[in-house]
């Protein structure tokens, strides 16, 4: 099914509801290879619900139908020197996808890029949604204004819900002016613990750092913009008006001298570098490897990486100041359990981001919820999708 209007979307879902047949809901399927596979009689794509419906640059607001390709939105914004704040990544290479990702898919998965550490996640900038629940009812939450606390915030609940509660038909996001200039400070040769100390110092400075990543030597060698430095690199991004970028880079280089002499990468190199970090290109993952994303408090990132290096020779790099650990390793249940265990020990969260289908079906791909929360979650699911037809099992088995 590929509805072209919201009414057709309602009819498609209602028909499945009436026969209690599960539906695999997707946009263009660019992230189909992550999370758990959905076993469903029907499939439904929002690809034809496409097009920007409202763009008001001076109000910092853009609305688009769910199937609108992200590249189309980025192009419209770029023509007004604006951008999507959370810098959504493109994991096509990582996941072997050839289709363009859609705004609906980016919001449904709540995936954010390096700017997340300073400016918030995708979900922080979803101002309004139109969606159809599992009973075929059209619902709206939020709106087209930047500040809105009217009623329960279903925008946040639907963002990151992987199509399990409702199918979004239209999304309104807050956008911001794109920076005039970018620069990156690159410190060579630090170990992970010193690197995260450096990143903490940078993020704790008054200089508006908007990217903070650490690439150990193997990861750095994957990225031409920094591989010439040799060994590991610790990366700090500044984005602002041109005079501010020059001033702030100088100040940061002086304040961070104890961590070494920073090379400064210019605007062009910074763009290419942070696109690579955003898309996890530095992760030295073999084609057969599994990939995990672990989110912990930043100071715990190096401990997570170290434990998994010892456990199964993990390859990794750190983003979000050390708090986001990208890990590659053998696609085995034992390696997966090791990732879960260290993430739990550090009170963090994890996602088995890429793995053969068998492993994703056999394991939990995200942590289980504590029993009282799982009970609430089941009732919330029923509140949207009582017959459990929307992407059943996508996030957790049996949900």
């Amino acid at each position, binding site marked *: 099914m590929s509805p072209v209007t919201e009414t057709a979307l309602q009819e498609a879902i209602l028909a499945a509801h009436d026969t209690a047949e599960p539906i695999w809901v997707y946009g263009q399927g660019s992230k189909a290879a992550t999370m758990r596979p959905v076993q469903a009689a029907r499939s439904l794509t929002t690809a034809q619900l496409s097009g920007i419906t409202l763009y008001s640059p001076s109000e910092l607001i853009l609305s688009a139908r769910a199937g609108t390709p992200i590249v189309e939105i980025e192009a419209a914004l770029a023509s007004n020197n604006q951008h999507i704040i959370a810098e959504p990544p493109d994991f096509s290479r990582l996941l072997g996808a050839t289709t363009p990702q859609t705004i609906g898919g980016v919001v449904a998965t709540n995936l954010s890029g390096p700017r997340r550490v300073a400016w918030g996640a995708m979900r922080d900038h979803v101002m309004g949604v139109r969606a159809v629940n599992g009973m075929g009812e059209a619902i*709206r939450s939020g709106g087209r204004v930047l*500040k809105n606390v009217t009623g*329960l*915030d279903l*925008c946040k609940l639907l963002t990151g819900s992987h199509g399990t509660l409702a199918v979004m038909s239209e999304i309104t996001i807050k956008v911001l*002016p794109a920076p005039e200039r970018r620069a990156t400070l690159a410190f060579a040769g630090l170990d992970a613990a010193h690197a995260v100390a450096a990143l903490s110092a940078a993020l704790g400075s*008054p200089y508006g750092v908007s990217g903070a990543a650490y690439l150990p030597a193997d990861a750095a060698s994957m990225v031409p913009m920094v591989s010439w430095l040799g060994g590991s690199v610790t990366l700090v991004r500044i984005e602002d008006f041109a005079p501010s970028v020059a001033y702030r880079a100088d100040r940061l280089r002086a304040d961070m001298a104890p961590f070494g002499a920073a090379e400064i990468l210019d605007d062009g190199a910074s763009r290419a570098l942070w696109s690579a970090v955003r898309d996890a290109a530095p992760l030295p993952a073999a084609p057969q490897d599994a990939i995990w994303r672990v989110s912990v408090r930043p100071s715990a990132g190096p401990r997570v990486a170290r434990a998994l290096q010892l456990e199964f020779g993990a390859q990794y790099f750190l983003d979000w100041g050390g708090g986001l650990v990208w890990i590659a390793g053998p696609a085995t249940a034992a390696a997966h359990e090791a990732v879960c265990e260290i993430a739990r020990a550090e009170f963090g969260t994890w996602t088995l981001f890429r793995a053969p289908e068998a492993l994703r079906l056999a394991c939990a791909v995200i942590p289980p919820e504590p029993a*009282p929360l799982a009970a609430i979650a089941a009732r919330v699911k029923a*509140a949207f999708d*009582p017959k459990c037809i929307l992407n059943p099992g996508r996030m957790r088995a049996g949900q």
Partner: protein
Amino acid sequence: MIVQHEPKQEVLARSAAILDGLRAILPASNVIGDALRLKPYETDGLAAYRQPPLAVALPTTTEEVAAVMAYCHREGIRVVPRGAGTSLSGGALPMADSVVLGLMKMNRILEIDYADRLAVVQAGVTNIGITNAVSAEGFFYAPDPSSQLACMIGGNVMMNSGGAHCLRYGVTANNLLGLKIVTVDGQIIEIGGAHCDAAGLDWLGLITGSEGQLAIVTEVTVRILRSPEGQRAMLAAFDAIDVAGACVDAIIGSGIIPVALEFMDKPCIHACEAFAHAGYPMDAEAMLIIEVEGSTAEQDELLGRIRAICDRFNPISMKVSNSVEESMAIWKGRKGAFGAVGRISPDYLCMDGTIPTSQLPHVLRRIGEMSAECGLGVANVFHAGDGNLHPLIMFDANDPESFHKAETFGADILKLCVEVGGCLTGEHGVGVEKRDLMTVQFNETELDQQRRVKSAFDPDWLLNPSKVFPLKLPAARSLTLAAE
């Protein structure tokens, strides 16, 4: 008087036993049951509505909160959570048969971590208390509602509070990492933590701004940020509202996001000037306060660009601060706006709609017409960058007719906000005040969807009753329960 659900007679009849039950859980001094000491809890920042509760419970730990909730759940008693009671929408208004769960004794800061840029605090810590605790190290907690000296972080989470600086730093929801919550039946759950983006459904985002409908918040993990090197304000005055609005569009269109961008109309300028003697231009129809931050050189650069933009709109006056003192003088009138209006009118209602910023001239014109029709004065302050409008309606609470007119005027303004593409409330919450207007913004299908989410957390509707949802029996409940 506001209509509430019928109090449960069987609960009222057991009030003595309920006080005993609470005293078995908490020290006797932390349970209030006598009429005199209940008095301070009968209202909140929306003082026009009053209703003493059955009892007040003042727990000091999450475990005590859990025990009180388990008890109330078992006994079928409604619970109204309360922080400092600064809600402007009646969010903490009790019901006669309810226990007010006051979190003000939970006022400890549990952890501050500068390297990981977070603080873990109990729900009763004041908003400014967080900033005060970290300011010596050069950090701050960003959301700054104007009640920040008194309001508590637990209440900020429940109402998703904003402030004057949200255009740059976001609202409460954007500055949280984790919560410790207690469910209606007394179970303790950790949501999120010290890390970003917990996998699974975004409970943190859903609970933030839920106005006490879903759970009790006892601990909050907030992001703390390093303070900017400095900030400086400027003021620009115009002889027409449309021109000031166009100037705001031009500033944002140029790629500059000031940390604050405040708009005041003529009645507001006059009230504030009479109160604060801030040197505001009395002949202006509209005035902007614009604040930027960074190093002195960066401030100069940004203020220079903004000044050049303002110049294109023929301002009748413009003043750029040259010092911290001059910036404070510019802000002085705005920050005292509510008090200033309170001086020229016996009472005022502070409204809180949001509109698409392009609609400002139209909306202010309509508000002016409504004001003339009903004979009540109104002064408008507006967070111009994000469209959040605060009309202050002047009335006399001792005159029932005046109060009724003010309520009607306020409701008409909010309906107008929705009509032009905005919403009923930008930061104060629905509470009891805007409850019956929810049908203006949402249809019944949408309200039922929200009600079913509420039912998933609180099947018996014991949490903060008579708020947010128009009073009707939650028919949606049976749907949820049938699906289980």
